[in-house]
């Protein structure tokens, strides 16, 4: 695409890129600060903050969405501007960066170069000299070539071949053009530098677009479910059923992992796939990602309790596992045990028994034993068994363990931008490898009847290249010296 209108070209200059990066940096930093300045409960208590801050500040915070700046119109606008600028840079720059890096050509003439550009100048006549005068052969290009010794075409060709071989040894790509006076050549090193740069820019654009798609189109929902619960996947006839949830602990009691086993159900409720979720190991199906996000313990209810019965007659003990609302037969008897009430934090007041909190601080079970004798009931305390009720039966009861109800926290998300982000990250990694793994160098030169001349054609301001070209002087004069010294002016 050709940008013909001059005013649009301002969008693709290096200065504009810098300005946009500055704006994005400042916007991110401002957003960063505001997420901490604005209280996190702002959206829940807007009325309170309206009174506390006054109408103007409240309206400003609301309008600019300073409580969630990274989803505000102004931040998205900055991101969009950044993306457009990147796109324009890529569209207008690909030719210069990619084509130039791969289809460079030898110069038609050795163009005008500035006096400050580092150069190598070696003339045949001075190569033939010896002693102290040799030191002078590396003068700047402006210095007039020395005594004009004719050198034949074969020697020029031989000289060029040696120069080319030398440059290739230094990982340059060399192209040449023969002229009446000699051989003009270009040598390019680090040809992957600019394509890497371009690839990195494309990747950042792809990631930005992917991120924006995810920001607008992505959905995320966190749901808590206990064993047996069925959750519907939003926007889909499918649902998932929690088959199992485990908190895996180490021997020392530290949490090692959370694992949920799920069944994916079709519209008829039939299981079509089993899934296992762990932290860092989500399940994916049909554009949905299902994560083991967190968990929740409900102390107000319990899954089951373990009750120990000690028989007075023979001292024998038996453990029974009882679920709420379930009658369980007591071993070796005709009695049944049933839990009639449960308080996670047992308290007894004037109005009777109640739970003073929702936490399992003093859990107590009211059990009822039924048999031929009729009914008998009493409280059992997990933490304070000495307060257990006494039963008019030849059996002592105590509660050993109460399993609370664990809810697995599942995050179900769908993000249509995911493939773009992953592709973008992969491209960016490759781009960075090329960009920082290779250093672009372009030299132009001539091997002619008067000597050889090489100049940095594209000065990236790199001191490295200056050092490199400085090192080349010695090497090149060595390989050229043989030709000039052995056969100065001799026709081949």
């Amino acid at each position, binding site marked *: 695409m050709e940008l013909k209108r001059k005013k649009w070209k301002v969008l693709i200059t*290096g*200065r504009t*890129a*810098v300005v946009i*990066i*500055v704006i*994005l*940096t400042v916007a*991110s*930093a401002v*957003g*960063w600060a505001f*997420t*901490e300045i604005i209280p996190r409960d702002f959206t829940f208590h807007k009325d309170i903050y309206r009174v506390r801050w006054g109408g103007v500040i409240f309206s400003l915070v609301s309008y600019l969405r300073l409580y969630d700046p*990274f989803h505000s119109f102004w931040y998205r606008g900055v991101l969009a501007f950044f993306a457009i600028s990147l796109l324009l840079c890529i569209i207008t720059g690909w030719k210069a960066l990619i084509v130039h890096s791969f289809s460079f050509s030898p110069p038609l003439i050795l163009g005008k170069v500035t006096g400050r550009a580092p150069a190598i100048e070696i003339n045949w006549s001075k190569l033939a000299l010896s002693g102290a005068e040799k030191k002078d052969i590396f003068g700047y290009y402006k210095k007039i070539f020395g005594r004009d010794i004719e050198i034949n075409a074969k020697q020029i060709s031989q000289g060029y071949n040696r120069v080319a071989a030398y440059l290739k040894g230094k990982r340059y790509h060399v192209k040449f053009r023969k002229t009446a006076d000699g051989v003009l050549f270009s040598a390019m090193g680090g040809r992957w530098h600019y394509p890497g740069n371009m690839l990195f820019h494309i990747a950042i654009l792809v990631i930005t677009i992917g*991120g924006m798609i*995810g920001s607008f189109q*992505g959905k*995320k929902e966190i749901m808590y479910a206990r064993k047996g619960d069925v959750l519907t996947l939003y926007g889909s006839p499918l649902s998932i059923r929690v088959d199992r949830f485990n908190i895996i602990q*180490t021997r*020392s009691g*530290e*949490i*090692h*992992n*959370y694992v949920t086993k799920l069944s994916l159900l079709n519209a008829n409720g039939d299981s079509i796939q089993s899934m296992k979720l*762990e*932290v*860092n*190991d*989500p399940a994916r199906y049909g554009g949905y*990602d299902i*994560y083991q*996000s967190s968990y929740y313990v409900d102390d107000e209810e319990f899954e089951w309790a373990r009750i120990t019965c000690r028989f007075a007659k023979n001292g024998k003990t038996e453990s029974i596992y009882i679920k709420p609302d379930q009658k369980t037969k007591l071993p070796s008897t005709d009695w049944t045990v049933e839990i009639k009430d449960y308080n996670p934090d047992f308290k007894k007041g004037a109005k009777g028994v109640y739970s003073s909190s929702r936490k399992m601080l003093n859990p107590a079970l009211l059990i009822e034993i039924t048999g031929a004798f009729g009914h008998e009931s009493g409280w059992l305390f997990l933490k304070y068994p000495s307060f257990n009720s006494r039963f008019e039966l030849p059996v002592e009861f105590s509660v050993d363990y109460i399993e609370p109800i664990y809810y697995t926290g599942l*995050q179900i*998300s769908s*993000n249509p931008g*995911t493939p773009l*982000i*992953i592709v973008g*990250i992969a491209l*960016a*990694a490759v781009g*960075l*490898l090329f*960009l*920082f793994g290779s250093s672009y160098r372009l030299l132009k030169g001539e091997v002619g009847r008067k000597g050889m001349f090489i100049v940095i054609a594209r000065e*990236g*301001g790199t*001191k490295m290249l200056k050092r490199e070209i400085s090192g080349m002087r010695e090497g090149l004069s060595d390989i050229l010296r043989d030709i000039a010294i052995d056969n100065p002016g001799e026709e081949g």
Partner: protein
Amino acid sequence: MNAALDVSLFWIAFWIYLVSFLVFVVFFAVRNKLPGRIAVIIFFAALVFHTAGIITRYRLLGHIPLATMFEYSLFLSWVIAVSFIVIISRFGSMISGVVISPVVIIVMVIASFLPKEGAKQLMPALQSYWFYIHITLAALAEGAFLVATGASLFYLFRSLKNKNGFREREAVEGLIIKSIRIGYPLFTVGALFAGSLWAWKAWGSFWSWDPKETGALVVWLFYTLILHQQSRGRWKGATLAIVSIVGFLIIIISFLGNLFLGGLHAYV
């Protein structure tokens, strides 16, 4: 193995680094190679204790010690110290000791204020190979940026003393640029990309605008800006040194941010 041994080794290393820095200052003042060599030997001795401290902590915890901010700081300062050894062995530049040793000390001072307890069992979210990729690369990148900062401080200090320029100007400026050029790709891949991919696997979203993430983005944008200006032939010399120091301040805010701001990285 004594549980406090790793912290003791850390303190021993700290004091030896401090002595090394003082000897480097003497070297810089008298411009004699002997104190410079002594300083390098002392620095190397400190690095040995430093390395021993990290290995000991690894043995004690049973996992690579990168899970807390103290451990991260310990590793970060180790990276910076190793970078000095690389520089001295490759370029023989003893002057870089004057630049780098105070940076190592500053990071270790920051570490000394952080809680030093370590957990044998990594929390479930951290039990991933991304943990090692993300944090190691981020530490290497920030280490490189901090080397640039040290060089920048030295540059400014010397520039203020010598208005007409100083002898090591070009070398120090080269160290700033090289360090940023090493740090930038590592930070991009390690802190941002590996972090995003891990977040996607663990939390279900590449980016959550958590304070640490936003801080990392600001750091990345800032160094992107420096590199763009560099490619345009701008921000050289003292300007480069100043912006490099500003970059360091952003890194520190990002680094310590989650201590005060909470967020998804609050456990680190």
